[in-house]
C-alpha cells in the first residue's frame, strides 16, 4: 500500500527546471533512496513533500490525503517528519528539550494552563520528558540529554535531529543527507539505527544521500534523479548495474 505517492511533480525556479514530471512511491515499511548528482533536485523534492515549497504541477498524496495547499505544520501532524541537510537543531536548548519539542504540537494544554501550572500541564510535561528520554536511549545518546545541542559535534547533532524527528512518531521520515559529515563507522551505525527504527517504530523513510555505502545498505528501492528528472528506479542491485545511472552519477563517484 502506497504511503507516499508523488505523481508528475514539477518545480521551476526562474530559468531552472528543478523538478520535471517526477514520480515516486514509498510503500509502508519501505526505505526508499533518492540519489542523484548535486543540483539534481533532491532537496527541492523534499521541500515540496514537507510543504516548504509549493510544486508548480503534479500531485503529492500522503496516506490518501492530498497535500496540496497544506501548511508544513499540518503535514507534520499528519505524520511526515524530516531532518535537514544543513542541521536545524534548536541551538540554545538541551538535547532533551529539542526532543521534547516534538511532543508540544500534540500537547493539549495551551498558554493558560502553562502559566497557571495546571496539574495536567505538569503531567504532560513529565510524559514528554520520559518519552523523549526513551527515544534518546533508543539512539544511544541519552548521556548527552542535558548538553546544549549547539555545543556537540556534527555527527552527534545529526543523530539528535534523527531522535527529534522520530519523537514525532511519524509514519514517514524524510532524511536529507543523514550521513553527511559522518565517518565510515558512524555511517554503518546510522544504517543500523535506520533499519531498527523502521522495524521497531513502524517508520517508512525516504532517504537522500551521496554516500552509496549507506544507500545501498539500507534502501529497499532506489529512485535516481538527474537534472530534475527521474532517470532510473529499481532495487539496489538493479540500480548499481544500470548503465544510465553509471554514466550520470556513479561513474563520477566510483
Amino acid at each position, binding site marked *: 500500500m502506497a504511503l507516499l505517492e508523488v505523481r508528475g511533480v514539477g518545480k521551476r525556479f526562474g530559468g531552472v527546471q528543478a523538478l520535471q514530471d517526477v514520480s515516486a512511491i514509498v510503500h509502508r515499511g519501505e526505505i526508499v533512496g533518492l540519489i542523484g548528482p548535486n543540483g539534481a533536485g533532491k532537496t527541492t523534492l523534499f521541500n515540496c513533500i*514537507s*510543504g*516548504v515549497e509549493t510544486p508548480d504541477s503534479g500531485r503529492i498524496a500522503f496516506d490518501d490525503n492530498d497535500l496540496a495547499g497544506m*501548511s*508544513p*505544520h*499540518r503535514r*507534520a*501532524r499528519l505524520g*511526515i*517528519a*524530516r531532518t*535537514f541537510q544543513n542541521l*536545524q*537543531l*534548536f*541551538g*540554545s*536548548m*538541551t538535547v532533551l*528539550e529539542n526532543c*521534547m*519539542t*516534538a511532543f*508540544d*504540537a*500534540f*500537547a493539549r*494544554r*495551551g*498558554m493558560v494552563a*502553562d*502559566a*497557571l*501550572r495546571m496539574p495536567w*500541564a505538569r503531567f*504532560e*510535561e513529565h510524559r*514528554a520528558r520520559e518519552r523523549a528520554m526513551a527515544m534518546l536511549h533508543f539512539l544511544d545518546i541519552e548521556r548527552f540529554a*542535558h548538553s*546544549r545541542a549547539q555545543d556537540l559535534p556534527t555527527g552527534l547533532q545529526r543523530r539528535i535531529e534523527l531522535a*527529534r*524527528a522520530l519523537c*514525532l512518531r511519524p509514519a514517514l521520515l524524510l532524511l536529507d543527507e543523514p550521513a553527511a559529515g559522518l565517518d565510515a563507522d558512524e555511517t554503518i551505525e546510522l544504517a543500523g539505527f535506520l533499519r531498527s527504527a523502521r522495524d521497531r517504530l513502524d517508520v517508512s523513510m525516504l532517504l537522500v544521500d551521496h554516500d552509496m555505502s549507506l544507500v545501498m545498505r539500507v534502501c529497499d528501492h532506489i529512485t535516481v534523479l538527474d537534472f530534475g528528472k527521474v532517470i532510473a528506479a529499481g532495487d539496489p542491485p538493479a540500480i548499481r548495474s544500470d548503465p544510465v545511472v553509471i554514466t550520470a552519477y556513479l561513474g563520477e563517484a566510483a
Partner: protein
Amino acid sequence: MSPTTLRRSLVVVGIAVAATVPWFTDLFAQGLATTAACTALLALSLVLLTGMVGQVSFCQFSFAALGAFTVGSLMVGHGVSFWLAATLGAAFAGVVGVVVGFLALRLRGLLLAVLTVSVALFVDVSLLAPGTWDGFTNGSSGWTGIPHPAIFGHELDTYQLYLFTFGVFLLAALLVWNLRNGKTGRVLRAVRDSEVASATLGLNVAGWKLAAFGVSAAMAGLAGALLAVAESSAAGGSQSSYSFQYSVALVATVTVFGAGSIFAAAVTGFFIVFGTWLLDLTPLSHQWFNLVLGALLIVQLVFNPDGVVVKTERDVVHLLHRLAARRHPPAVSVTSEAA
C-alpha cells in the same frame, strides 16, 4: 548555599524591601515607585517578546498608550470602573498587538524594528498628537483627573496603589516564569531558533508568534492602564509619557540588563524611573542620564550581549559552584538557566 536557594532568598528579600520601603517615603516618591512598577511591567512585556521569541519591538509604550487612553476615556468620560476599563484597555492593546504581529509575521531583525518604529510614530502623530482629544476633553489634549481604582467602594491611597501595581507586576512575572518553564517557553524558543524546524515538528509558527505579540501587547496595555491611574492622567502632546523615545529607552535599558531575564525587567523599571535620581547621588548631573544609558548600552553590547543581570547571575552561580567544589570535591557541573 545552592544557587536555587540563593535566588529564592534574594527574590523574597527583594520583594519585601520593594514593598515596604515606599511606606516610609513621601507621596511624591511613592508615586515614582508606582511608575517604576508600571515600567517594570512594560519591560516584562518586552522580555516576553524579545527574550522568549526573539522579536524586537520599539512600540511597547504605544501599546501602553492604547491602554492608558482607553482607561482615561472610559473612567473620566463615561464613569466606568477601573476594573472594566483596565481589562478593556489591555484587551484593546492585545488586539492591536495581534494586528502588528500579523504585519510582522515575515519580518525579522532590522525590518521588524522598522515596522515597530513606524507603529510607534503612527501612534505619536495620531493618538498622542496635541489636539486629538480636545473635542472630548474640552481642550486639555488628554484625560486628566483619572481617579485611583476602588476596592469595595474604598479608593486606594497612593501607597496602596503602589502595592497594588507592584502586586500586578509580581503576578505577571510569576505567570511569565511559569510560561517560560513549560511547553510555551520551549515552543517559543524553538520558533526563535529555527522556524523551519519548528514547522516540521507540527508547530504553528505564525500562530505562536501572533500569540506572543498579543500577550506582550496586552501586558503593555495593562501597564499603560496602571500608569494612567498612577499619573491620574493620560496626556498626549509634549507632556506625553508614551512617545516613541520612551520605547527606545525601554529597549535600550532592557538590553543593558538582559532581555532574557525576568529579574532584569524589575531592575529596568527601577532604573528608568530612579536612574536620574541615582545620577544625582554621584558627581554627575541627572541631565546625563541618556548619555550614561547610551554608553552602558555600547559597553554592554560589545562585552556582554546577554545583559548585566544575566551575566551577574551566571557569575554568582559559578562562584557558588567553585566554593562548593572546594569544600566537597569533585565538582558537580550543573547547567544553569537565567532567571
